[in-house]
């Protein structure tokens, strides 16, 4: 029985898991969970992910949430090439260091920018106040600076000469604001060069396939029924405003 991966490619961690599985030719069944349609609140999905979040994995009786846990599990089970999550203690620690830092840094800020620019205006029918936007943009820029200065420095990838889970988790978060029309790579040649390397390493076709939904988000939002977003309103307004 193949591994089942419950994914919505609008979600950044889902994209990491998707690209990881495909790049490593891991046989899996893609189970789409549409967040926009509230499918993650359904009874069936609740049995897979008690946390009710995507991505989620089911391998026989074993169910798992959290993209990092999922990718490390798949790496071990399918014996993926060492560079993804190196066995070398210090290299592995560097990957873990990035994966830990990013939860409350770039992940939060990239998401926030996407919601503030695109989703919330659609939800409440007006633009978000300027100070909120400016504050969010400043935080995002600080994180991007840290990524360039501390995590990348003058290396081709975060941990060294080869890609790792750190780069895979980083790229999807950094791509998220692009879905809302904010080009974070503009004026950042180092980051752009790294993105190109990552895209080449993963494979341009796979990278683009994974990002198709998010990059088409602005178009998609034009057609969406605002009542669909009611589901998210309380949480999002509390989180971001």
């Amino acid at each position: 029985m193949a591994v089942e991966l419950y994914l919505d490619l609008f979600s950044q961690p889902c994209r990491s898991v998707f690209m990881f599985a495909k790049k490593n030719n891991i046989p899996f069944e893609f189970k789409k969970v549409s967040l926009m349609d509230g499918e993650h609140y359904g009874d069936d999905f609740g049995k897979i992910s008690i946390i009710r979040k995507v991505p989620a994995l089911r391998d026989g009786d074993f169910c798992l949430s959290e993209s990092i846990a999922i990718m490390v599990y798949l790496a071990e089970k399918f014996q993926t090439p060492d560079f993804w999550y190196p066995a070398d203690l210090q290299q592995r620690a560097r990957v873990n260091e990035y994966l830990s830092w990013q939860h409350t840094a770039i992940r939060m800020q990239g998401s926030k920018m996407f919601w503030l620019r695109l989703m919330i205006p659609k939800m409440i029918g007006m633009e978000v106040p300027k100070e909120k936007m400016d504050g969010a943009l400043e935080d995002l820029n600080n994180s991007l600076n840290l990524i360039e200065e501390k995590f990348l420095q003058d290396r081709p990838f975060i941990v060294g000469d080869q890609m790792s889970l750190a780069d895979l988790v980083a790229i999807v978060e950094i791509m998220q604001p692009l879905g809302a029309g904010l080009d974070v790579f503009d004026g950042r040649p180092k980051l752009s060069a790294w993105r190109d390397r990552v895209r080449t390493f993963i494979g341009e076709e796979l990278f683009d396939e994974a990002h198709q939904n998010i990059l088409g988000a602005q178009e998609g939002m034009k057609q969406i029924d605002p009542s669909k977003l009611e589901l998210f309103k309380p949480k999002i307004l509390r989180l971001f405003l």
Partner: protein
Amino acid sequence: MIYFQLLSTVIATISCRTHGYRPIQYGGAAGCAPARNEASTYITSMAASQQGEPAEQLDRRRTQQRESYCRPSLRGFHLADREHLVSMATGRLVEVYLDLLSQPCRAIQILLSCTKIPHRVHRVALRKGEHRTAEFSKLNPMQKVPVLVDGGFVLTESDAILKYLANKYDIPEHWYPWQPERRARVDEYVAWHHTNTRPHAAKVFLLEVLLPAQFGAQVDQDRLERALLELDATLDKLESMFLRRQPFLCGDDITLADLLAVCELMQPLGGGRDVLKDRPQLQRWRSRVQSALGESFNEAHAVLFAVRDRRQAKL
């Protein structure tokens, strides 16, 4: 007796390594990881009574499970063994920069004390701004604790540090199990912890203790109420999604997950608030964790208790 134990360990180490296996050291022969202790027996009998299995049988089964984790798929960990033996031989201590008022710092202190990993602690007093000195900034430009320094290797982020210590040193396997499904459970909690347990518990302490202390102002009751509601929702999830009917967050044994969680949930006690007051299930979990950790738990929390006691004296 000790000579025999040492000899058998050496033989086990050599034979495991020639087959490319990583020897699991179970017991204190090398003087590093502690031997089976009271807490471990307590845990076993707890788990046994919950499963209806006689304690000695459960014990035997789990020992066999642990020993079977010596297997060739653990690539590259020969390096860990050599490193460990070298550091034991040269007496190189791992250095950590900690402030015990910080939750993740306590988790690291407790792991180091419990597992007797040779280490040296450098205290960094956040309240005195010692993390902003030029010297500390050279070590960690992000000006945060905890920091680990091992030879020339500098590492930040508590989960990376805890996992590094667990992978490098021969500590009891339950802290960060080798078996992929059990390890995944710990990774799952540790990831979830960042955006759930940690921020919501920390916020309560921030609003009740830190901000008023720093600015001399009253507690913002509205914000505190909201923060307590958020924390309540998180504790619901902690009980129903992770703990459920298990002794510990990730299963039968204490892991890094319990360590991180308990240090976070202790923090509001610095303001005299027990956030587990009305939650008997989590209280029992906390007691089990405290038992398993022994003296190292109290020692690590002494600073926090002192903060609480000083506040109570003032009021």
